[in-house]
């Protein structure tokens, strides 16, 4: 319980928790007004009076007004909390992306997107809309019976109340039995859907291999068998419906009615009617049961997932560099001295030294897993080195200056994500104030300008999600143009041609060959044609660099 409380606290903001209480308050107020209206109706039954009638109607309207408040407040609060959660999640992603790879940050991007869209919505629908209302609904029978016990008759009120705790117990039992049945039937239904989806997804293969009729028959056979199994399951499990439903009506209604008749000496006719009408409110918790399966379970699972992502601590290692920070060699764009790095699975870089003069072109080769990307990450300023000294453009790399380091170089990775929007929008990510002329110049330099000129709207061509409208090779060249447009003097290339077709590869290599000589270029590559462009080539092996080719 204590752990659960802690968990809730860390995901939901204080405002969000307050909203839950407010929603619960509205629900409670609505139920109380309903009760007061019913009591007025009982009074009316005893002695007809216009004021009593008016009172009943006024409370009836108030019950409605509070119900209105509950739903509207809950909806608004949920959307507000959703915004806060998304913000925390993306901030966390940024924090994790600029830290050493800990064990917890390996979340798939697609999963993270789900976390920030579907899951945040589910959590807030649960916490801000459903939870407060449900807690209030559970409290309602106790409040009502206390009233009956004090004002009308203690025996009726408190004896029924003894049975009221059986409601949550009963609901719990109902849920547990039902949960199993519903989980099983959901699983079966899921199997059936997957089978169908699988067939639909592979429609072409099935058709081309001449398996259409066979799969159709198989689907229908499996569907029938599966449905038979589900119905059998439900036939047994849903007996619980009969038991719960009759138990509720019998115990609550018979007991209340019986006690009222037994205590008739102490109860007026109007009060008797009031008691019978109030039994409607005793059923209030039942209305929330159905929601538990759709909102509650999904919300709790989502909350756990979000909590676990937000709980991952970025490993910020203190730089074990000397306290006195010296300035680097003024002739070097990049300088590594005695740099080590460990992702927690053994050292990747071991006492590594590297000196890249301004304007030089350096290639780094090495087997996969040798630490090439780690080395790049340190130069980029996304990974804090754990030992030794690093200078980029003469600036010493320290843990609190990582974001400053990130402004010194621009990268082109193996594959480039194109943002929804136009080509110009994508270029402006690197330079918000770039003019059209500057963008065309960068695109010329990246050897992609001709192709973009041929597109229907030139720079304003819309790319669509995931850049479906341009080829991977074009995306790589746009990424290069973007790097050039940023005005940064150090360009980092991480296997930029590994996923592109021959034509694009040729163009990318031409573009790189013709880049201005004052740019410093560091590239990870295995392509011979790219290696030919390098002044120096180093091989990264077992954590240290070995020069394999010297500038001629």
């Amino acid at each position: 319980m204590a752990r659960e409380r802690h968990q809730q606290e860390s995901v939901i903001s204080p405002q969000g928790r307050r909203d839950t209480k407010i929603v619960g308050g509205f629900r409670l107020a609505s139920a109380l007004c309903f009760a007061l209206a019913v009591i007025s109706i009982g009074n009316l039954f005893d002695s007809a009076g216009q004021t009593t009638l008016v009172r009943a109607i006024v409370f009836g309207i108030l019950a409605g007004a509070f119900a209105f408040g509950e739903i509207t407040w809950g909806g608004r609060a949920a959307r507000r909390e959703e915004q806060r959660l998304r913000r925390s999640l993306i901030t966390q992603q940024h924090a994790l992306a600029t830290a050493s790879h800990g064990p917890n940050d390996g979340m798939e991007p697609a999963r993270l997107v789900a976390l920030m869209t579907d899951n945040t919505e589910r959590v807030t629908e649960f916490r801000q809309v459903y939870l407060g209302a449900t807690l209030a609904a559970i409290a309602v029978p106790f409040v009502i019976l206390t009233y009956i016990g004090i004002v009308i008759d203690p025996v009726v009120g408190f004896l029924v109340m003894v049975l009221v705790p059986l409601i949550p117990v009963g609901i719990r039992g109902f849920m547990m039995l039902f949960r199993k049945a519903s989980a099983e039937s959901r699983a079966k239904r899921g199997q059936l859907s997957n089978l169908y989806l699988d067939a639909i997804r592979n429609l072409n293969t099935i058709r081309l291999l001449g398996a259409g009729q066979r799969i159709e028959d198989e689907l229908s056979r499996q569907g029938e068998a599966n449905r038979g199994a589900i119905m059998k399951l439900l036939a047994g499990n849903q007996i619980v419906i009969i038991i719960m439903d009759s138990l509720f009506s019998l115990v609550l209604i018979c007991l209340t009615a019986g006690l009222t008749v037994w205590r008739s000496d102490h109860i007026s006719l109007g009060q008797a009617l009031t008691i019978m009408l109030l039994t409607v409110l005793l059923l209030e918790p039942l209305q929330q049961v159905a929601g538990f399966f759709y909102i509650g379970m999904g919300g709790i699972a989502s909350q756990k997932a979000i909590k676990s992502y937000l709980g991952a601590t970025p490993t910020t290692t203190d730089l074990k560099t000397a306290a006195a920070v010296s300035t680097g060699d003024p002739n070097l764009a990049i300088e590594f001295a005695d740099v080590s790095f460990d992702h927690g699975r053994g050292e990747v870089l071991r006492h590594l030294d590297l000196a890249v003069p301004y304007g030089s072109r350096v290639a780094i080769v090495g087997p996969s897993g040798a630490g090439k990307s780690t080395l790049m990450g340190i130069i980029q300023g996304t990974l804090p080195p754990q030992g030794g000294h690093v200078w980029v453009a003469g600036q010493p790399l320290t843990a609190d200056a990582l974001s400053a380091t990130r402004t010194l170089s621009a990268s082109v990775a193996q594959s480039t994500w194109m943002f929804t929007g136009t080509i110009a929008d994508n270029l402006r990510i690197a330079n918000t104030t770039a003019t059209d002329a500057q963008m065309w110049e960068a695109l010329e330099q990246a050897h992609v300008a001709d192709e973009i000129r041929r597109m229907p709207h030139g720079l304003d061509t819309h790319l669509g999600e995931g850049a479906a409208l341009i080829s991977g090779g074009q995306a790589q060249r746009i990424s290069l143009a973007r790097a050039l447009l940023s005005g940064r003097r150090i360009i980092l290339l991480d296997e930029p041609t590994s996923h592109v077709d021959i034509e694009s590869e040729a163009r990318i290599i031409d573009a790189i060959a013709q880049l201005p000589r004052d740019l410093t270029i560091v590239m990870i590559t295995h392509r011979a044609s790219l290696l030919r462009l390098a002044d120096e080539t180093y091989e990264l092996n077992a954590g240290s660099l070995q020069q394999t080719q010297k500038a001629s």
Partner: protein
Amino acid sequence: MTSSPTLRELVSWLLSITKPVHAPLLFSLACRIFNLLLDLALFGLAAGGVVHLLTGGDIFGVLLTAIVVIALLKASFYYLEQFSGHYVAFKALELLRTYVFAKIWPKAPAFVTHSRSGDVLTSLTRDVDRIEVVYAHTFAPVVSAYVVGAIAMVTAGTWFGWDLVWIVGVCLAVALFIVPFVGTRYSLTATQETLAARRDLAHHITDSVFGVNEVIGYGRESERIESMDALGSTVSRLARRPRDLAAFRRAAKLTLSLMSAASVVWLGLNSTTSLAIIAGLTAASIRLFEGPRGIEDSVGYLDHSLAAARRLWHMSNAPARVEDGPAELTLATAPTIEFTDVSYAYQAADGTSLPDTISGVDLSIKAGGHAIIVGRSGSGKSTLVQLLQRYDDPREGTVRINGVDVSEFTLDSLRRSVVAVSQKSNLLATTIAENLRLGAPDANDEEMWESLAVAGLAEEVRTMPDGLATHTGQNGSALSGGQVQRLCLARALLMRPRVLILDEFTANLNAELENEIRAALTAWDADVTIIEITHRLRATTQADIIAVMDRGRIVLAGDPAKVTVDAIEELFSVRA
């Protein structure tokens, strides 16, 4: 071309598919009506009975028995309603799915590739689900709300007098005929807009998450967060109105039910009706308003469902793009293949022709030959070979096997002889054996192992604990990319094709493995014509003919001596 069906045609079409669930659906509806009516009776009887006892009546035993019997009956009807409801849900889903699948598979692959969009398939499954909801969750609640309301009012009015219950009748009419429809259209539009805004937000988040390197590398973190918040605010704003309307409906229901109860007492006390009856009617009138729940959701839902049904109707009734020819293709030896002046254009979603993807292609491949088609992505290579399998027919020109137009053959016999292995993994979520047997249902274990061996996968499958019975996972997720590709190759080989199309089949293989498989393929069966598509220039030497495609045309063709790697690179750098 198929024209749009009228509403009447659409509904009768749908009803003809779902005929087997109509009886259980009506049964479920009847059970629901009984359940709701008994609920009214239960509360009315309890309240009325208590007042009757208190005013000197002596019916305790009768009353108790009646309550117990009604409660048990009500529970049984509830059970039957739920059970038959589930039956309807599952059966309707199954009927619709089977029907739609049976209708569309013969139209594949043109149906899928033609619009060049995977959306058709996603929307198809969603549409089927949508219609199922009408059967499972909409019909009975809506119909029963009106039926129960009518029965309850007529019964109370005739038995106890309309002067007692006319206000209840008015309130119920408001709840059934006005409240559900207030702002429904508006709410529907707003919901659509909210969903659209959520999609925009999801796109934005997808960009931020997948493009995190760019965002961080160029220091755009706060900008991305701000624009995300702006989109989030739009979602919040749009989501408000539909929720406000839902809140209004809940409020109206509560208030109307209490007003009805008060009106019965007020009118009753001014009449000669017995107190017990007044009490019973009061209690029943409060419960009466539980019924209308769910109508408002259905109003909007029905629109969507009709739209879904219309889409399914179009899909199911769309003509197939290619039909069987008269002849069975049987090939005892590897055939010749000729593309003569072939042009092809895809069609846009609205049916208009797009620019030619292939124009004026001529290509001859000798019997048992090995052709390689090179070109960058989007140059039309895959589309060209798909015409050989008759995904569609060319706009102009002919594709011939041994001199006979491919449209002369039945589709099944053509595709049994001409088999493709594509770059996309196409595995069903089942065992390796089932996947292998997809194209050759009668293959035995020995034959399967043999083709796995040629594809270079036999050793790896042997080390798997379940061997041929190993599950491949969805889209082959339980295997590596290279394994999936080799399994697809083995599946094709198992069909003993006379023409084998290899579309980027080595994309996921390392060079060593690729060479091994090439060697095994050469040794496997000399009597097959191979067409290979690639954008890599490796291993072109074993080809008889190499064709270079660019923008739908063959720009260079000849034997490896003529079309060398240098010549191709020359071609592209000149064009660049």
